[in-house]
């Protein structure tokens, strides 16, 4: 599916089908109307019945009062986003459930001892979750307060400007996965393996984008802002403590691709409650999920700790 129909003259971001202006910098998508040499006079007529038509505000288009035909006007299209590229599954269901079993045994002492043996797997379901990956160039202007160079106040102001380059950054659009789950398994994907059409494993839940293009652009822009703020705060603001980090990215060459990412979602039941774990569909070692705590063991540890402290105190008291 080809969505991009050209490139913006100013910021070199792709112009997509149905855009009248560049979504990033606002430049008009030019169409060659040609030069008119002489005066042209026209009365608008209905394409259907030939009657004279007028623009009608109730239909927001030229509308024929005789035959009820409405003329089409070229307006900004805002279609619902659709996947362009699918990443294939390279981990199968058996591997995924083995991973989860192993993971259940590796969660540490504070989990119930019988978690691994008693957890009943309710099902391992393949899922294609949706998200965007984008590349962009950004000239980021920033200001911040930090402790570097501080005088009487704990904070001193700083400012700067830096060129940042974003490459294949993934933003989740998934409803099925939480942002935390998506962020955890994202690094395991090989975006180069994506193809326009891939045969999914049987029973795959294929998520659809449920946002329109304009909202998608807003989300990507705010993701860029978030990432830029983190990078600026960690790498560019001097000092060890920062606050009020503000960024203004001037974007160029923002290229967005719409992906479906493979994952295995496993639900399991332990003592009547349902928990779930998510395994990357391309790397069986990447897993994130929730699991019950053993309150008995936590209580034991706390009491043990208290006894230990009390004994040290007693020893110290006796020693003096």
């Amino acid at each position: 599916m080809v969505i991009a129909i050209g490139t913006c003259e100013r910021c070199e971001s792709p112009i997509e089908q149905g855009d009248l202006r560049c979504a990033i910098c606002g430049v008009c998508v030019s169409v060659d109307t040609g030069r008119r040499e002489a005066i042209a006079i026209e009365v608008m007529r209905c394409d259907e019945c030939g009657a004279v038509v007028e623009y009608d505000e109730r239909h927001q288009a030229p509308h024929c009062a005789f035959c009820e035909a409405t003329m089409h006007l070229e307006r900004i299209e805002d279609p619902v986003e659709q996947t362009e590229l699918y990443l294939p599954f390279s981990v199968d269901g058996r591997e995924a459930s083995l991973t989860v079993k192993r993971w259940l045994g590796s969660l540490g002492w504070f989990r119930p001892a019988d978690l691994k043996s008693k957890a009943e797997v309710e099902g391992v379901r393949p899922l294609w979750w949706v998200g965007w990956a984008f590349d962009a160039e950004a000239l980021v202007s920033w200001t911040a307060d930090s402790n570097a160079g501080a005088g009487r106040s704990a904070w001193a102001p700083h400012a700067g400007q830096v060129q940042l380059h974003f490459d294949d950054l993934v933003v989740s659009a998934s409803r099925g996965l939480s942002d935390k789950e998506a962020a955890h398994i994202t690094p395991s994907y090989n975006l180069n393996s994506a193809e326009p059409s891939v045969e999914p494993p049987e029973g795959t839940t294929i998520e659809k984008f449920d946002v329109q293009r304009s909202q998608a652009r807003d989300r990507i822009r705010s993701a860029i802002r978030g990432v830029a703020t983190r990078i600026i705060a960690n790498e560019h603001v001097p000092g060890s403590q920062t606050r009020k980090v503000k960024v203004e990215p001037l974007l160029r060459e923002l290229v967005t691709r719409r992906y479906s990412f493979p994952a295995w979602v496993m639900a399991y039941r332990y003592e009547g409650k349902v928990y779930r774990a998510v395994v990357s569909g391309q790397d069986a070692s990447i897993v994130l999920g929730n699991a019950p705590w053993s309150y008995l063991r936590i209580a034991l540890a706390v009491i043990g700790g208290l006894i230990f402290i009390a004994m040290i105190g007693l020893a110290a008291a006796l020693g003096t």
Partner: protein
Amino acid sequence: MNQAVATPLTLGISCENCGADLLVEPHLKTVECPYCASTSIVERPSDGSYVDPVFALGFVVGRERARELCVNWIKSRGIFTPKSFKTALPERGRGLYMPAYLYCAVAHSEYTCKIGENYTETYTTTDSKGRTVVRTRTRTEWRNLAGRSANYVRDILVTASAGISNKLLEQVEPFDLRALLRYTPALLSGWIAEEASIGREECRELARTESIEKIGERLSRFMPGDSHADLEHRTWLEDEVTDLMLLPIWVFAVKHADEEEPVQILVNGQTGEVAGFVPRSWVRILSVVLITLLVAALLFFTIAALAAF
């Protein structure tokens, strides 16, 4: 540079529908035939003085609704408005596609500012009973900050019609540019549409002024610290783009007194926002001031008289 628009003579055409002879004013793009009520759309040669619009916004607010909004707006004006104005009825409104320039640019700024960083100070003082006490107070340390910022300026609209001032247009803004349409003559059918009567260069100057103002506001939000003062900036606008577009506007004229010029009232044809310069009644302002003074004087003397006893 003021690129003056040439004013060719009024155009004589014949109605394509019924053949009647029609005259088209040089500043108009459309003419309605008085015999058959069909609208002829005139497209003049693109020779520099006439530019085709690139975009347009369609009307959403109809005639009845626009008039209603206008009447309600007139009624709800403040206390200093002459009574003759508040009871006046707007004359038949005209749905007008007014020309405007849509401006965008890349802005590079250099700024200097004083940033206030707060800190808490302990100090010793004596309280009302003469005891020495230690208290804390918040003080501000001022630091100089200089930096650069770069951003896109988008969606600046300025009037290209000599008949509607930019100030008045600003008062009925914003327009929802997500509903932008590619200009097509079909939109104008049944409505009045104006040619641009202010040159592109003059409009660009207006747009630059508006952009610089906008950037000042943006920089003010961009400053760190607990407070700031003396923000100054120098801004370069690069890669400017100005596109001619048509905005849907209802224009009403209100004649409220014989000796006064009619007042122009605009209704945003997309959002229904109303604006106009309301006349002030000096008689009303003066009487309010006098009454206030009188009440104050009365109060003063009453209190003075009571205090004397």
